[in-house]
């Protein structure tokens, strides 16, 4: 308990300290308000942005893009990994393309996606699919290969069929890694959606940030960045909680 509490105290102290420093720097005029607005004006701006009629719609658009892209990307990645795990020839065929896709920084594809799908949620969703795919594919493929040989030997001695070995051993052995992939992917998904919205969209949290920046509404800029941060944090937290519930056997030291 004590070891757990100590960092919490430090974290809280740092937070308060940062706030006080921020307040002091801006209130005294040391830093100009265009560069860094006061905590109070950012706070007011957050309330104002959240209370706008359109805010719910912006939030909904970003959430939908992230979730749709994440679902499509991770499901296709898991399915393809399952196929590649079974068939060495399919894996050989596909690997160069997967590697090429991964090596390319996906953000540079955005202009092309805008041309293909138009500026808006479709292009953003495709972007999310692209960034989600690789971490899930690779972790699933690795996960499916780590079932320990002793377990296989035991199941064989019990007369288990290959399907039973898959279900009772290979899949549960892979789940911790698959979930690690999903957690990485969801973090990428939020980042990719926000980036795509920043560069071209009429809706979404990224658009709100870009808009505040374009009109040089500095408190709004800080406010929308903070809101996007909270959104991203909540999504990640959800997956962290899911991970602890579903992968309850994950070794303690792997846990972060």
């Amino acid at each position, binding site marked *: 308990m004590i070891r757990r509490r100590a960092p919490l105290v430090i974290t809280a102290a740092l937070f308060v300290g940062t706030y006080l420093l921020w307040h002091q720097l801006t209130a005294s005029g040391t830093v100009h308000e265009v560069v860094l607005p006061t905590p109070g004006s950012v706070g007011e701006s957050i309330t104002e942005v959240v209370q706008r009629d359109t805010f719910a719609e912006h939030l909904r658009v970003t959430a939908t893009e992230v979730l749709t892209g994440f679902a499509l990307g991770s499901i296709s990645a898991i399915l393809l990994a399952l196929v590649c795990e079974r068939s060495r020839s399919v894996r050989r065929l596909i690997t160069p393309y997967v590697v090429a896709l991964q090596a390319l920084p996906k953000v540079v594809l955005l202009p092309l996606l805008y041309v293909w799908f138009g500026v808006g949620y479709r292009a953003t969703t495709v972007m999310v699919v692209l960034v989600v795919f690789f971490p899930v594919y690779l972790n699933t493929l690795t996960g499916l290969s780590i079932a320990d040989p002793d377990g296989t030997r*035991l199941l*064989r001695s019990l007369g288990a069929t290959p399907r039973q070995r898959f279900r009772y051993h290979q899949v549960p052995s892979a789940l911790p890694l698959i979930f690690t992939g999903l957690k990485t992917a969801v973090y990428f998904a939020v980042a990719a959606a926000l980036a795509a919205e920043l560069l071209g969209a009429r809706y979404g949290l990224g658009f709100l940030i870009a808009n505040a920046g374009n009109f040089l509404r500095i408190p709004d800029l800080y406010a929308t960045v903070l809101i996007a941060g909270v959104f991203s944090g909540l999504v990640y937290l959800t997956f962290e909680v899911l991970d602890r519930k579903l992968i309850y056997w994950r070794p303690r030291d792997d846990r972060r």
Partner: protein
Amino acid sequence: MADPRSAAAAAADEGAVALVGRELGKTFTDRSGSELVALSAVDFEVRRGELVTLVGPSGCGKSTLLNLVGGLLDRSGGTLAFEGSEIDRPRPEIGMMFQAPVLFPWRTALDNTLLPIDIRRQKRALHKARALDLLELVGLSSFADNYPNELSGGMQQRVALARLLLQDPELLLLDEPFGALDEFTREDMNLMLLDIWASTRKTAMLVTHNIQEAIFLADRVFVMSPRPGRLVEIISVDLPRPRTIAMMRAPEFQDMVFEVRKILGAL
């Protein structure tokens, strides 16, 4: 599940030959094509209800022999039959236990014990009471709902034993089952194993590299030597049962230990 009639018949027929190996051989070929003779021309019989131990240094083929009997490996030559039928694949009436407990970390002790039931696609509910009884038998009644990472090495191996007993095979194949445990825990486990074996009268083959352990547990000790793996001597142990730790101090016990050492050392 063992049919009660066949179990009764087995009890009546105790002493009849259950397992026969003739000219049994196993050669492994690696990728480069070079061959390793793991087991060569092994002849043996195991009687029903008998406890046989296999002892020898690393590489003597004792685990290979056990894997052949378990149907996990294909033999390269000779014949091998259990209760009159050839062993060419794993069989439900032959159960195995390994040096590692091999428990699935996502299953509780109870669920791990019930694994054979899942594999046979039987209803868990019908076997849960028996699984709990077996966990109690191995001294884990209050740990049924614990996950393996919450159990010590010895306790994990007890779960593995309960799982083997739930499978209820006629022939138990034990591959250094307590080899990874400390000496005190291992002694406890050996005594528990003997208790269970005495009350169930199952046929058992146990692999060990510990000569004292091999003699202490066995009706007969199969002494094996490496390169190539061969069965060089069979020693009958006439110590009375139930065995006690004190028997290990008896002169005849020490004589047998010396004899096995001599066989292994002279080769």
